[in-house]
Structure formats: structure tokens, C-alpha cells
């Protein structure tokens, strides 16, 4: 098992954290992860994280749902057994389309919403019996934690973090999973 060293810097205010992120980024340190108890607006931008593509997947899933609904109802109502039900025209899909629209709509939304949520779980590795990855329990309540891997001069980094207003700085040896 390989071990690596990281620094955990703990903050108690999100504004201080934001400024700290900007300073640390300016000094060209790589921030491994930040743990916060609530969404901090603009943190992803400050860290330079790439924008999410979940919305694009949702659009594609919605398109899949629409196609499924059309193919399903065309097969059942028009191709397989085109019965006359209350005089509704079942000669072609277009002729009876208005009656199918509510289902087309609902299935589009259903596919879009559910598959997107599942994609979110997969991408963020969330499931019921997952072991929580929490370096410090206080980060779920009122503390913010910044994790920075160390390659070289620890003292410089510790001084920089102290300057940014960290209330606690810890040097941690982390076992890597792989």
C-alpha cells in the first residue's frame, strides 16, 4: 500500500474559504478536494471545475423517452391491433396523435428525470450502503475543509494557508485505495 501526504486546512467561514481558494490557486497549488456543509456559490468557478454536462444527458434521455413512447403506441394502437375505439381514427399515427400526446409528454419527462438522477448517482458514486468519505465530521455542520496534496516544501504551503485564515492545519498521511 502506497501512502501520500496531504494537508487539511479547516476554515469556519465561506467567504474566507473563497478568498483562500483564490490565493491558493494563484500560488499554483493543486486543490484535491473541498468539503463544505452547504453549497457555496461560485466555489466551482473559483476552483476552476469544468461545468456539468448533466443537462445535456437529460435532454438526450428525454429524446429517448419520446421515441419510446412513439414506437410503443404506434405498435400497439396502429400496427398490432388497429381497433375502432369510440370512432377515433387508427389508420395512421398522425391521425390519432393528439390522443397520444399526454403519454408522449409524460414519458419524455419520466425518462429525462429518472435517467438523469441515476446518471448523477453513478457519476458522483452514491448508493445506499456506500461508506461515507468524510475526513472530518465537522464539515457536515459548520466547518470547511480544503485538502491539498504535498509534493515538496510543506512549510511554504502551511504558511500560505495560515495567511489565508485557516483555523486549523493538519498534515495527514493518507492510504491510497489502489
Amino acid at each position, binding site marked *: 500500500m502506497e501512502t501520500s501526504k496531504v494537508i487539511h486546512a479547516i476554515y469556519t467561514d465561506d467567504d474566507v474559504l473563497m478568498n483562500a481558494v483564490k490565493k491558493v490557486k494563484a500560488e499554483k497549488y493543486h486543490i484535491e478536494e473541498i468539503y463544505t456543509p452547504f453549497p457555496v456559490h461560485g466555489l466551482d468557478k473559483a476552483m476552476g471545475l469544468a461545468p456539468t454536462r448533466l*443537462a445535456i444527458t437529460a*435532454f438526450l434521455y428525454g429524446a429517448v423517452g419520446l421515441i419510446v413512447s412513439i414506437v410503443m403506441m404506434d405498435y400497439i394502437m396502429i400496427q398490432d391491433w388497429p381497433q375502432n375505439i369510440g*370512432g377515433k381514427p387508427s389508420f395512421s399515427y398522425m391521425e390519432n396523435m*393528439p*390522443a397520444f*400526446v399526454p403519454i408522449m409528454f409524460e414519458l419524455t419527462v419520466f425518462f429525462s428525470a429518472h435517467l438523469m438522477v441515476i446518471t448523477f448517482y453513478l457519476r458522483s458514486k452514491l448508493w445506499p450502503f456506500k461508506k461515507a468519505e468524510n475526513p472530518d465530521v465537522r464539515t457536515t455542520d459548520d466547518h470547511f475543509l480544503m485538502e491539498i496534496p504535498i509534493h515538496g516544501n510543506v512549510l511554504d504551503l502551511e504558511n500560505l494557508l495560515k495567511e489565508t485564515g485557516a483555523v486549523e492545519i493538519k498534515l495527514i498521511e493518507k492510504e491510497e485505495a489502489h
Partner: protein
Amino acid sequence: MYTISNKLKTFSIALMILGLLGVGYGFMTSHKSFEEVETMLSEDASHHGGGHAVAEVSEHSNSGHETNAQDATTQVDEHTKHVEHVQHQIANRPWSALYVAAFFFFMIALGVLSFYAIQFASQAGWSPVLFRVMEGITAYVLPGGVIVLAIALASGLIGHYNIFVWMDPDVVANDKLIQAKASWLNIGWFAVRGVIFIAGWSLYRYFARKFTIAQDTASDDSNFKKTFRISAAFLVFFIYTESIMSWDWIMSVDPHWFSTLFGWYVFSGMIVSGITVIAFIALYLKSRGYLEVVTDSHIHDLAKYMFGFSIFWAYLWFSQFMLIWYANIPEEVTYFVTRIEDYNLLFFGMMVLNFVFPFLVLMNSDYKRIPWFVMMSGVIILIGHYIDVYVMIMPATVGDQWGIGIPEIASVMLFLGLFLFIVFTALTKAPLVVKRNPFLKESEGFHY
């Protein structure tokens, strides 16, 4: 302070003059004699390989001698009636074209007025920098409303009942259904209602404008609170009067037909075109350097409203259509039968313009910030909603004798010129950004 550029002034005046000429031309050429219409119909029928006009005439000449004489006279009567009917439809066209264009520009202003009131009543934090733009557009409510009402009344009092058949006493005398509605649908009461609506909307507009201008130089927020209160009251008044207005001014062109969600349907078209025009004028003023405080976040918000209300419009359009299509009750369904048969491309084409295009084009968050993108989709939305009004009015007045030619285009030019002139003149009357509004700071710093 904004000053209207000479170019814009001449442009709008040129539009009005050209439009007036075209409208005049439309009225001059719409009075066809009985014989002209008769030859036109038979030519038309022979082009299309035998329509009903030719069928009637030939049937009459072939079988007239063999069958009894009574039959022959009824056929002649039928033919005369048909030609007279078409003659009347042709005469209706310039009236309806004028009415559609007048209502279209009026509904933009009224939609903006309701949006403006909603911004106040909901205490929106993003929109105060756009208040003066909205006030400029709503300056058209009073003249626009008066023009629409005047055309409606003139079509009955001066014209030959060219828009509303229920105004024609001869029609009413033979029509039990309209007789039963005569206590509501009569010219006097129609005019009084119209005046009440226009007066109510204009009064709100006058006082809201007065209070926001007073707020600019005030030392406390009392004027703002007054605007808040009258806006909330106006919204209650508006939702009633808008509903009734839509029955009166639009639905009553088909006095045999009725639909319960018609008022909301008209409203949804109104507010989406209104918001589109707010975005247009804000973008225009910004591009001229007059409205720097409006950022792409404000445009993004407007584009979101355009997107959302386009879908809302499509929802109501479909709800109205699907309910009537599904139940297929003869007295209701004729409304859509005539539209699908005679206006097929326009009727379904506007669905594409008003729903499919905005839905796909304005879905992406990044595109909603790009001015030319918002402009392009806005143009599509406005064309779509002009067609929407067109398809609401025309089938009842001109039937299958419709066209989009000089009368229609000239009417649009006339009212576009008037609209631009009034709106941009109103914009010069006060600073383009309100002052001392309690939400102004938030609006200026608004960032999405």
C-alpha cells in the same frame, strides 16, 4: 435621457405612410361586383378541376329541364347565395387584415403592462432596470386599444358588418343562437365594455408611470408602495377584463362557438410577445449605448420567460385543441375543421414557430445570453403570434378567401410604424433607468 434618432423617426413615419397607402389600396380593391366574383369563382374552379361553383352551375344547366322547375330555382338561389357569400368574404379581407394587425400590436403593449404589474406585485429584484423600457412599450396601450375598438365598431357602423356577424341585424333575425346571446353581443354594450377595459388599463398605466417618476425624486418609498398596491389591484382587474376582452374582441367573430380557456390562451400569446418585445427594445437601446446597466443576465432572464411562456402557450393551444378534437362535438369542432381545412399550413405551422423553435433554440442556457440569438428566436416568436391572431380572426371573416398580400403586410407596416413611433417617443420622456427604487441596487448587480 434617450433621444430618438432621426433615422428611427423617419423609418417609422415611412412605415406608416406606406402602410396607409397599402391599406387604402386594400379597401379600394376589395369591392368586387357580383359578376366579377362569379367569373373569378368559375375560373378558380376550372383551374382546380371542378370545385363546387362549376358543379352547381353545370348541374343546373344539365338537369334543369328534366327535373321540376322548383329544383332549378333552388339551385339558382344556392348559386347566388354562394357568390354573395364569397363577395362578402372578399370585402371583409382589408377590414380583418387591419383588425389583426391592430390587435397584434395592441396585445404586445397589453402583455407588457401585465408583466410590468407582475414585476411590481411580486417585488422582483432583477427587473427594475427594465421598468422604463416596459413603461415605454405600455404607452401604446391607450392608442392601440382605442384603435382596435374603433376598427371593431367601424366595421359594424360604417362597414357592412365586415368582422362581427352578430352586429348585422339581418343575420341576427334569422339566427336563434345569436338572438339568445344578443343581451351580451350588441353594439352598444360591446362599446361600453370596450371603453371600460381601455379606461381601466390606461388608468393603471397612467398612475403607475406617475408614481415611478415621482419616486425618482422622492425622499421616501411611499410612491413605490403606492405602485405596489395599484399593481396588485390591477392584476385582479386585468385577469377579469382580459378574459372578457378576448370573448368580445376575438371569440365573438365566431358567435356560434365558445371555449372556456380562450381568455388564458389569448393571454399566453399576449405575454410571450410582450416579453419578446421588451427584450428587443432593451437589446436595441443597449446596443446604442443607452442602457449599459442591462447585462446579459437580464437578457438571460427575459429569454427564460420567452421560453417558458412559449411552452405555456403551446400547452393552452393543445389543451383547447385536444379537448375539442377528442370529444368531437359538432357545434364545437367546426371551429377547428375550418382551420385545418382552409388554413392547414398556418394552423400547424404556427405550432412549429411558437413552440418547437423556441423550445429547441432557447433551451441552452448559453444561447439565452447571446443577443443575436435572442433576437432571431424573438422574430420567430413574433411572426408565430401574428399568425396565431390571424388564424383566430380570418377563418370567421374571410374563410377560404384568405391570403397574405398587400392588405395584410400594409396593415402590419402601418401599426408597426405607429407602435415604434409611440414607444420610442415615450422612451424619450423620462430617464431610461428608474432612480430610488428599493430594488434598484439588486437589479443593477443582478447576476445569474
